[in-house]
């Protein structure tokens, strides 16, 4: 897994280097409008507004442009206008335009403005990049291979978003440890990465990625049909586990359907159904997406514990200490409950036009680095 990560990073570095200018261009230029397209929809610029995980991530991205101060838990706060940009136009759910803050203490951004189009479907984003109608566009991990095949300049970051299943407290299956373990052991995670994600991601057995904790290799990710079959046979009754996925998330849907097949092959039964928060009343388990707000394993684990505390129940002890041994012991205790079933790690990926310089895919916990990029001449 680690070698694959290193190889992937090297590949991206080579890719970006190959696309760079032939002449030295170290000193940035000022001016221009950076055109950005994202899939999420932000309907309010109020930092306190609550939305889906995708919307929260996009809100944090926009907030990172507007506020100077970042809170430890990953949100941004402070005085509006203290950040490198200020809002000049906001059409809820559609578009936000920010202009460079000439008085930003960290220095005026290189670009004059950034125009962010929201709610753009993945296909449209790729087309706009190809037709030079966008400079930077989010690319879903499962679309990275296709973008590369189309000759796009693609920047793939570290795997920093965990896709997992959590059991809904109070539901019968949530209180049946054998059912939880049976589900986990039935899932062929490498197959999800290879076929659904087109190899852009990593199977997840724990809740922290290998590059951060260094101990993810201790968790098994391969399917264990024999163990799963034995566990399913011990579970009385024939009721299906109802697994809910976000109705607007095609990746969750694909993974859910794949899991239903895996579980059936192992002798169990899962019924999948689209849901929106609070709408599917009978779901036993549902998907969660957890994005790391820090590359440090202890900080990331603390954040997970805070957001998953009610689901993990009595086992959600805070991380005791910060040594790798203590972090591993806490993580192991969480995973061993099977109340959370890690599935895959996803990277952040962006398509970047040739005229964008000094682009660096944001690391976990970092905001969008639009203040640091500048626009050169397209080759």
């Amino acid at each position: 897994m680690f070698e694959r990560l290193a190889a992937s990073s090297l590949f991206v570095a080579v890719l970006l280097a190959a696309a760079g200018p032939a002449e030295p261009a170290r000193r940035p230029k000022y001016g221009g409008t950076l055109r950005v397209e994202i899939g999420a929809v932000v309907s309010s610029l109020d930092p306190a507004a609550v939305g889906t995980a995708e919307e929260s991530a996009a809100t944090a991205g926009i907030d990172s442009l507007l506020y100077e101060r970042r809170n430890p838990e990953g949100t941004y706060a402070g005085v509006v206008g203290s950040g490198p940009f200020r809002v000049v136009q906001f059409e809820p759910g559609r578009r936000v335009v920010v202009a460079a803050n000439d008085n930003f203490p960290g220095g005026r951004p290189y670009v004059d403005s950034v125009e962010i189009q929201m709610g753009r479907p993945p296909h449209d984003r790729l087309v706009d990049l190809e037709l030079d109608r966008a400079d930077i566009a989010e690319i879903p991990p499962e679309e990275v291979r296709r973008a590369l095949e189309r000759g796009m300049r693609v920047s793939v970051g570290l795997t920093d978003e965990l896709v997992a299943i959590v059991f809904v407290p109070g539901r019968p299956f949530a209180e049946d440890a054998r059912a939880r373990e049976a589900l986990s052991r039935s899932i062929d995670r490498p197959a999800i990465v290879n076929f659904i994600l087109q190899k852009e991601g990593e199977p997840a057995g724990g809740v922290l990625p290998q590059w951060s904790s260094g101990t993810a290799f201790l968790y098994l990710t391969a399917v264990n049909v024999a163990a799963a079959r034995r566990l399913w046979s011990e579970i009385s009754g024939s009721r299906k586990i109802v697994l809910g996925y976000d109705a607007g998330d095609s990746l969750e849907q694909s993974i859910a359907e794949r899991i239903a097949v895996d579980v059936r092959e192992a002798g169990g039964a899962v019924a999948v159904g689209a849901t929106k928060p609070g709408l599917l009343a009978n779901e036993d388990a549902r998907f969660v997406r957890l994005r790391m707000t820090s590359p440090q394993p202890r900080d990331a684990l603390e954040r997970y514990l805070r957001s998953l505390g009610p689901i993990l129940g009595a086992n959600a002890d805070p991380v005791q200490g910060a040594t790798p041994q203590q972090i591993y012991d806490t993580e192991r205790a969480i995973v061993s409950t099977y109340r959370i079933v890690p599935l895959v790690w996803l990277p952040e990926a962006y398509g970047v036009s040739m005229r964008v310089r000094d682009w660096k895919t944001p690391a976990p916990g970092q905001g969008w680095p639009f203040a640091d990029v500048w626009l050169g001449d397209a080759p």
Partner: protein
Amino acid sequence: MAFAHGTYPPRTQALSFASPPSANQATGTISLAWTDELRALGDQLVGIFPPPATVDLQVSNISLLSANEVAAIEEWLRTDLGSRRFRLVDGEPVDAQVHVTLSEGTQGYLIVAQLRRGADEQVVIFPVEKPATPAKPVGGVALTDELIWQQPGNILDFGLPQPEAGEASTLIVLEVGRIAFYVRDPEGWQLHDSVTIPPMRPWLRAPRGYLDLSRGMENGTAMLSGVECKGDFRHPGAIVCSFVSQEGAPWATQEEWRSKNLRSAGDAALISLVCNGREIALATGSGDWTQTDFVEGYEIGALKGQGPMASGNPLELGGPVTALWPTGTSGLARFVVRNLQSGNYEAHRVRATCGQ
């Protein structure tokens, strides 16, 4: 590591090397950081599987350690366990299986040991701090790097003037909006004084800076984009800043020289050194500021039409070089690196010497 204020670089792990317990079995050497933690692993094994237990020891590596380093670590561990009267055997039957994986995360290297006896498994983890990269042997122009100072905030330039007899060393750090004066005491560099540079206009995102102490501390000048601060740098209170034109700024002159003589470089500077009859310049790579960088020596052709020639091994750095200047002393230059891993700005001094 977070620094609330500028601090002297933490004392790095000593790079002295420790021999394995039995010298005649050594094929390589590993640092004290490793031997300390391997010894701790041995201590723990003694407590769990009292010698003379038979142990099946397997070592694997998923870190970026080289094969030679892994071999040296494994040999040291085997020798240490042998000296503790463990009987190391391959395969069954054994009292315990010990699978050691050399891994790494954001906190450094890890020794992860999976200890198995029957169906029981226990995992013990020992962190190992990553050492500084040792210098490579050089041919041609040899470069010796010295890290002087690091801090979270941007360093535009810095100066390390020769101290007067009997006086403490002074480090002057030119930042965006400040000239900081540090004095060396036994604890390291301590902030002694500072001069605020008023923002006469909003600061640029990539401001340039240059500290000129060539006419002595008493006639120092700190230049920033559009601002110049002059005065007696022995008495910071007497320094006065004013608006100036950017025409003739040192970075413009440097850029002009680079574009004529070392077009392939990012930044470049002549360093008053001649090797084999050729002038020596130092230059950085030409990648952008998201990439690691290097400083490399170049022999500048003495004849017309003769191009520059890279000489010696480059100094590999952990981030882009944001400033590179000669110090005025032959073969000595200073540069600033933004370390991509720590996020800190690092002030370095590099000495170039003519190699064999």
